[in-house]
């Protein structure tokens, strides 16, 4: 599964994984948008920890979700992008629209 969705309070967390490109994000986008319209979360968290590749199609995915979240008065957070993805995020200037957050990963021992 390229995306797993979790709800925590009023946050919708989308755990992305694998390679994000123009081909693979189609179903991811549909899955996220369906959950957003059903749950109307206050924050959408896109978790990139397990993403192994992303090109500028991923920027389109983030931008589109920022627009949708903005439309329902919510915000979008990009969590734990790996170094290579951070470079594309910086190039795109997306931090003006979405919060970029580095959150320590919870290991099994600390849970």
């Amino acid at each position, binding site marked *: 599964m390229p995306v797993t969705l979790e709800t925590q309070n009023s946050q919708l967390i989308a755990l992305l994984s694998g*390679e994000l*490109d*123009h*081909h*693979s994000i189609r179903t991811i*986008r549909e899955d996220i948008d369906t959950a957003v319209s059903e749950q109307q979360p206050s924050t959408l968290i896109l978790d990139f920890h397990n993403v192994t*590749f*992303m*090109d*500028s*199609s991923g*920027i*389109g*995915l983030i*931008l*589109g979700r920022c627009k949708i979240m903005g439309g329902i008065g919510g915000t979008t957070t990009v969590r734990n992008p790996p*170094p*290579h993805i951070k*470079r*594309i995020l910086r*190039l*795109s200037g997306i931090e003006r629209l979405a919060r970029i957050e580095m959150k320590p990963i919870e290991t099994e021992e600390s849970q």
Partner: protein
Amino acid sequence: MKTLNAIRFIFPGISLNEHTARAVVSAFLVQTDPTVEELADIRTAVSEAVTNAVVHGYRHNDGDVELCIKLLADREIYIRIKDKGCGISDIEKAMEPLYTTAPHEERSGLGFAVMQSFMDSVRVRSKPGEGTTVTMRKKLRSIPCRSN
């Protein structure tokens, strides 16, 4: 410049092959022992160019994409991605960051900006109705002498 090794990979310009093209690039680059960052840079640039061919070049008709990768002297990587799609009428405009002809499809307009940022050089040749060829080069860091 002397070509040490080269491959040509021709594939249908469908979105599934964006991944295939990256896999081929990775396989070819193994021989150069690239850094994680170099490999990611080249894979991303190739992904952008192939996606452009699929999304824009072959928007209205089907066709093949040709990916050519060469390892040149002094650890320089040469990449050419060629389609016979619709072509670009205004290359300068197309290369402007954030410019896209498909905003409704959530295209960010950053493809060429990413290619330029991650590669040493990017050259685009295109003719409306005939297709587009993107040529990119990147020099890999030199490898220290090995004992074997």
